[in-house]
């Protein structure tokens, strides 16, 4: 149970806000990914490939995608580190993977586990115990280790170097306290946060380590603390137990050795998976007859979907695979008990090895900002150089006087022999001056900006997560921010790459039509009461109701007596039998009624089994040896003699069923392309043809199709197969390949039974969302594994394709023809000026185009097209297409998907979004943001993305300005102090300036300010263009800001200078004036740019000014500081107030004037929309206009 609580924390990191979000805000000063708890969750890999017989993937298309997930996973691991070939179709990788898993384990790479002999196991090797430690620190190691980690960040190093420089007596510009304060505050806050998090981890570790489990000690199972479990020990666990370490199954309560497990803590998938005990061990009870054997397995690694080992038991060599191992964190379900031997424990378990966070990306805005930061650094160096050169010249000119100058006093006369006092020659003095000026002007490089940005992103994430428009009722999931450093990228997206199944569609399959033996049953589906059966006085119903075709329902009741109804009988029997679904009976509130829940990995299979149940073929029970199907009230038991799992080469699965009457039949279900090659076309060729026609019409309306075939096996045939099957499944080496061969030999000359059509409905709001995105000038590309017809029909129903579009379809089998098609397409686009154009391209063509010289042509063509649809693409190709755009343009790309096959593109794109849907959580785990529905993309990009970008862009510029204006004021003063880096502003004010006086408003405004309301942004998606055109942050704005900064600093500095020239003003007083003037100014500057004044904005801006005044007064009432009482003396004179007011006005007039001029003469879209929002005279655009706008682009 503990695992699940941890997981919850990870999944909804931001739920902690509920408790104390302000506290978290304060604590999140550090790099944001650090806030994620070490993830117990696993990084993505495939699940279909290795998880034994439960994965027949339904529709050909989906199957193909799934089967390619291996390649996706390799991308996941390698992405970024090496160049990938995006064109490969995955087949090669598949076979490689198979051969990999069947190579011999080298002795030196292996770990030997003596079953039930922990002593012997552990005497030769130092295997980890089962106690885990996710906490990073102990009491002793906390300080050094935490500091070490914190100083990994460049900003802190900069702080530190400056602080250290300041400690040298020669360079001491600030007092010790003042110079260390900013750094120590940051370090302290971060350390407190880390300590708090680590304390929580310690607590959870303790709970985890002290759980009890049942361990075999001296032939009896005894309770033992989880942390004391050792490798080699045999442990027993019962239903709903969480498995404490990685174990190899020995036996289970099921006589065939099946155990069902739930991996929700591991990868978030809630469906049940099957694991097997080996035949040789499953009948033994460890208490009575000793199991002695040796397991030779791989060294611990993080691949949770791979396991390779051999077991030597009773002199027999057995090979163990991923289906024999149960990993730490899984939960045993539907199985009374299971016994296994520990092979990996503690930190060496696969779950622990995988506990790492999502990879981080860097936002585009930040990258651009860093360029400007370099400019500012150069500017800083220039200022320091200027000061030190001037200081050198001054010293040289006054060289002879220095000795007697009252204010310099180079020589010390107090001792008999006269020495230089604090003077080491001109060169050294100049050098010191340079270093000192770096210390004084340090905030020119806005280090605080990085911290502010992180805080702002946390705040923005808070609002995105809390947005009830992005809450998905169905899955009860909020929006999730998994990466915190790319919020503002959401406001600049140009390309959206979307998966189809589960992203545009619901991935909730519904059985629609059937074509049975050449007869199309696609009449209107009606609601039925639902089929139910009586078992021991209880009513059993399927959990989901399916609409049925009335005619077919009648026919299905006839039974297999007549010739026509025989096919219908076979068809539904096939649907009920040929799958890997596990029926689970659940209680309802009504004690007389129970529901059957069909658990399986593939939603298509579930839909088919539910459909079969609705027509009276209800699957009631499945064990590894038999299934029980209730056929029209009559319970029948079928022996499952063998099952050939789905694989990507065959694109089909088959089951060998022993019928009650003794006949044996093979039932095959698979994709149309693969099925038609193995169907015996000599018989019933008209049926085959009719079926093909039906299939085409089904897929043209966007349905997913599967073909079912059947063949009765003769006795010799069956025996031949059986022996081959036995040999293959017990083979130690190359078992998978052998099994595949057996399957291919068996699956021939089938009689066609029929085809099913399943509807995958569009998610709500998808057409509208796509319309909005298109109006926002975002190009939406759909990349799907489905076949072309399905993809196009979904394209139409989602309004991605419209009837006025010209379609360019590229389906080629050679590189030559691909090149030609691309050329033709280009000519069509450019010369003939046909608009709009939709490009439809399939995976086979992409094989030839990607990673070849045709790529450029494809890019040209695609960028001329309004819509691009890629069908039948492999996961790697998806990433390849994203890379095609990403490498050639500066435009931001976003990939959205829900399945493991989308992981590669989610990782490749600038922004990756995972849909937490039906297909597991791999996509979510790899994504930067996760949400429940495709349509949330609209508020996410158009509203939050827009806001985030505007806010962040403004904040960066403002922070540049804020720090530079202060530095310049200091700089001007240095020119009047003999270039000696005296600051009139007290050192405390200098330090507090960016920490306290001006820090809060900019953060608050960057979190809360909205340039436009949600309504306007949604009504006018075109407003999104501001982000795409970089309107909030660009080089022009930067230089304008710098010019403005220069002017404002001149006003702030020189007005008091001239006003108090030749007076008896003292340094502290004028310093206070400068402090107040500059703090007022930067806050007023910010206030001028605030769009929406909420009470929080008021409080932060005016509050900051107030706090500054309080601080200045507080500093001036300390008698030992030089500025004692200065502020009161100063404020008692009118000239102070006159100066203060004059500075504010004179400084902001140019900015205000120019802003107003631009606002009037060259209003931005945002400005117009804002005015319209206020005065409400924007004419609602008609649909006609929308059409015209979208076509014009």
């Amino acid at each position, binding site marked *: 149970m503990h695992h699940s609580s941890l997981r919850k924390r990870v999944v909804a990191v931001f739920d902690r806000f509920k408790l104390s979000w302000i506290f978290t805000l304060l604590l999140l000063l550090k790099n944001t990914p650090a806030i994620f708890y070490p993830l117990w969750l696993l990084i993505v890999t495939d699940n279909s490939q290795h998880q034994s017989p439960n994965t027949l993937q339904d529709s050909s298309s989906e199957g193909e995608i799934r089967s390619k997930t291996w390649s996706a996973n390799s991308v996941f691991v390698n992405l970024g580190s090496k160049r990938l070939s995006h064109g490969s179709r995955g087949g090669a990788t598949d076979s490689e993977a198979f051969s990999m898993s069947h190579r011999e384990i080298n002795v030196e790479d292996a770990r030997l586990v003596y079953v039930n002999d922990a002593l012997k196991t552990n005497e030769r090797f130092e295997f980890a115990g089962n106690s885990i430690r996710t906490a990073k620190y102990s009491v002793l190691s906390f300080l050094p280790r935490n500091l070490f980690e914190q100083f990994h960040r460049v900003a802190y190093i900069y702080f530190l170097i400056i602080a250290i420089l300041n400690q040298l007596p020669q360079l001491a510009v600030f007092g010790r306290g003042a110079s260390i304060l900013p750094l120590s505050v940051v370090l302290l806050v971060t350390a407190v946060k880390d300590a708090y998090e680590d304390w929580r981890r310690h607590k959870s570790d303790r709970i985890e380590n002290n759980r009890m489990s049942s361990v075999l000690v001296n032939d009896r199972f005894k309770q033992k603390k989880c942390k004391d479990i050792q490798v080699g020990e045999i442990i027993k666990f019962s239903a709903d137990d969480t498995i404490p370490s990685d174990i190899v199954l020995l036996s289970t309560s099921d006589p065939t050795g099946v155990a069902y497990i739930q991996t929700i803590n591991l990868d978030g998938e809630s469906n049940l998976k099957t694991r097997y005990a080996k035949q040789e061990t499953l009948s033994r009870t460890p208490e009575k007859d000793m199991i002695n054997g040796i397991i030779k397995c791989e060294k611990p690694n993080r691949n949770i979907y791979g396991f390779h080992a051999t077991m030597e038991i009773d002199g027999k060599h057995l090979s163990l695979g991923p289906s024999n191992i149960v990993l730490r964190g899984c939960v045993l379900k539907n199985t009374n008990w299971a016994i296994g031997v520990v092979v990996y424990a503690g930190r060496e378990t696969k779950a622990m090895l995988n506990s790492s966070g999502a990879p981080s990306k860097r936002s585009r805005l930040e990258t651009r900002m860093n360029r400007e930061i370099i400019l500012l650094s150069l500017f800083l160096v220039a200022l320091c150089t200027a000061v030190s050169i001037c200081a050198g010249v001054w010293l040289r000119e006054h060289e002879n006087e220095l000795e007697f100058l*009252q*204010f*310099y006093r180079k*020589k010390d006369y*107090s001792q008999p022999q006269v020495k230089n006092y604090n003077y080491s020659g001109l060169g050294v003095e100049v050098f010191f001056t340079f270093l000192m000026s770096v210390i004084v002007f340090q905030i020119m490089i806005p280090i605080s900006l990085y911290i502010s940005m992180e805080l702002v992103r946390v705040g923005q994430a*808070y609002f995105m*997560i*809390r*947005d*009830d428009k992005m*809450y998905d009722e169905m899955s*009860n999931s*909020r929006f999730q921010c998994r990466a915190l450093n790319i919020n503002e990228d959401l406001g600049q997206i140009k390309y959206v790459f979307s998966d189809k199944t589960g992203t545009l569609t619901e991935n909730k399959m519904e059985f629609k039509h059937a074509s049975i033996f050449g007869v199309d049953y696609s009449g209107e589906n009606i609601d039925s009461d639902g089929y139910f059966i009586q078992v021991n006085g209880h009513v059993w119903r399927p959990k989901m109701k399916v609409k049925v075709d009335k005619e077919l329902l009648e026919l299905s009741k006839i039974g297999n007596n007549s010739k026509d109804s025989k096919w219908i009988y076979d068809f539904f029997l096939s649907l009920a039998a040929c799958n890997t679904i596990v029926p689970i009976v659940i209680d309802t509130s009504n004690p007389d009624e129970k529901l059957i829940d069909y658990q399986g990995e593939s939603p298509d299979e579930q839909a088919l089994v539910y459909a079969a149940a609705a027509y009276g073929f209800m699957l009631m029970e499945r064990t590894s040896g038999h299934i029980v199907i209730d056929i029209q009230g009559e319970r029948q038991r079928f022996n499952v003699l063998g099952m050939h799992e789905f694989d990507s080469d065959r694109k089909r699965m088959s089951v060998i069923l022993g019928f009650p009457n003794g006949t044996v039949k093979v039932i095959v279900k698979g994709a149309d392309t693969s099925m038609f090659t193995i169907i015996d076309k000599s018989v019933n060729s008209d049926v085959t043809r009719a079926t093909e026609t039906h299939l085409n019409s089904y897929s043209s309306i966007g349905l997913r199709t599967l073909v079912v075939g059947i063949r009765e096996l003769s006795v010799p045939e069956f025996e031949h197969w059986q022996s081959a099957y036995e040999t293959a499944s017990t083979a130690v080496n190359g078992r998978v390949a052998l099994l595949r061969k057996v399957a291919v030999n068996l699956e021939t000359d089938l009689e066609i039974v029929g085809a099913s059509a399943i509807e995958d409905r569009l998610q709500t709001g998808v057409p509208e969302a796509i319309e909005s995105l298109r109006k926002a000038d975002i190009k939406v590309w759909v990349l799907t594994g489905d076949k072309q017809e399905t993809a196009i029909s979904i394209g139409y129903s989602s309004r991605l394709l419209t009837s006025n579009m010209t379609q360019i379809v590229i389906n080629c089998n050679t590189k030559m023809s691909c090149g030609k098609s691309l050329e033709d397409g280009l000519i069509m686009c450019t010369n003939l000026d046909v608009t709009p154009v939709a490009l439809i391209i399939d995976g086979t063509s992409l094989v030839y185009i990607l990673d070849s010289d045709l790529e450029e042509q494809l890019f040209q063509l695609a960028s001329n097209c309004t819509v691009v649809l890629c069908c039948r693409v492999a996961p790697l190709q998806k990433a390849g297409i994203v890379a095609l755009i990403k490498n050639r343009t500066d435009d931001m790309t976003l990939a959205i998907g829900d399945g493991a096959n989308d992981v590669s593109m989610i990782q490749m794109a600038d922004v990756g979004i995972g849909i937490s849907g039906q297909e597991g959580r791999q996509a979510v785990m790899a994504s930067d943001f996760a949400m429940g529905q495709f349509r949330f993309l609209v508020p996410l990009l158009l509203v939050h993305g827009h806001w985030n970008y505007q806010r962040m862009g403004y904040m960066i510029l403002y922070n540049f300005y804020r720090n530079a204006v202060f530095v310049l004021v200091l700089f001007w003063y240095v020119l009047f102090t*003999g270039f*000696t*880096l005296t600051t009139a502003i007290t050192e405390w004010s200098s330090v507090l300036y960016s920490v306290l006086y001006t820090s809060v408003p900019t953060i608050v405004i960057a979190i809360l300010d909205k340039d436009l309301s949600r309504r306007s942004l949604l009504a*006018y998606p075109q407003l999104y*263009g501001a982000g795409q055109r970089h309107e909030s942050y660009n080089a022009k704005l930067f230089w304008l800001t710098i010019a403005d900064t220069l002017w404002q600093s001149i006003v702030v500095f020189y007005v008091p*200078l*001239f*006003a*108090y020239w*030749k007076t*008896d*003003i*003292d*340094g*502290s007083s*004028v310093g206070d004036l400068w402090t107040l003037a500059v703090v007022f100014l930067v806050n007023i500057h910010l206030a001028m740019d605030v769009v*929406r*004044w*909420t009470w929080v*904005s008021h409080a932060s801006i005016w509050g900051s000014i107030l706090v500054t005044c309080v601080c200045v007064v507080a500093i001036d009432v300390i*008698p*030992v500081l*030089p500025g*004692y009482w200065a502020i*009161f*003396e100063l404020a008692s*004179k009118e000239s102070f107030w*006159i100066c203060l007011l*004059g500075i504010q006005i*004179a400084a902001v007039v140019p900015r*205000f004037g120019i802003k*107003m*001029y631009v606002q*009037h*003469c060259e209003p931005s*879209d945002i400005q*117009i*929309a804002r*005015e*319209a929002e*206020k005065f*409400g*005279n*924007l*004419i609602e655009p008609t649909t006609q206009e929308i059409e015209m*706008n979208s076509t*014009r682009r």
Partner: protein
Amino acid sequence: MDQKNKTSKKPKNSKFSQQELPAWKPILTPGWVITSFITIGVLFIPTGLLALSASDNVVEIVDRYDEGCIPDSYSQKAESYIQNPNQNKTCVRTLRVPKKMVAPIFVYYQLEKFYQNHRRFVKSKSDKQLRDADAQDDTHNCFPEDYTADNKPIVPCGLIAWSLFNDTYKLSARGKAINIDKKGIAWKSDMEAKFGSNVYPKNFQKGTLIGGGKLDERIPLSEQEDLIVWMRTAALPTFRKLYGKINTDLESHETITAEVENNYNTYKFGGRKKLVLSTTTWIGGKNDFLGIAYISVGGLCLFIAINFILLYVFRPRRLGDPSYLSWNRQPIV
């Protein structure tokens, strides 16, 4: 259903979390822009005029005496003159009162090119030592004026105190001495809290190199007002310090004789010394800068306001006019 609601993660629909807090959304319409510029202009020009006239009313007499107080025979070796302790350094200056000066009249000395804000200088004092008799050994910032050669702490220590300005002025008009009130020239706050009433000068100015004035060891620091004034270091290299106050009016065209004891050595670096007599008004001393600045800013704002009026008249734009939206402005192909 109830149970489902309990576990629902649906975000609370608060105005804050939905970013819908009530807000004031000001939009600067042309009216507002013109009004604000005119307001600034209307406020600033009169204020500037007032400041200018106030500054104009200030009567100020400035006399530079550093050169004039060196006898011609020493003009090439001013330093040796000033450094000679046996030399009588009194010199007599004649000042004319241009306009009637109403009491109180402030007497300042003005130094130029004297960097009281020099880093080496500003830090060279001990605030603790100045206020606390027990802290006389707290001299760590004061080197080289921290201890005497025989290792006794100097009170007050440091370069600032050591370089105390020590020229003195005696004024007389028509043979009658004008009393310069030396009381109350320092900040009250400094006298009460910053300089201790039980701290007496010790070992001060006993070294080989004399920096400036000496202090009467019988008077506590809190009453050494000249020192207190000097130690409130000036912000800028050209500065004035209050020397005293004259509490009688000076009539117009009166001739004042100033007897200057020229002790302070600024000849090394060519720093000028000036004697200043000045009245004050609410704006302070004589300084036209603020007045001119206010008038200029005000004038500029009025000018901008006029330009905006013209702009709005000749190039009007309806607020929120959708035809200005970029996607509506694109020419239709």
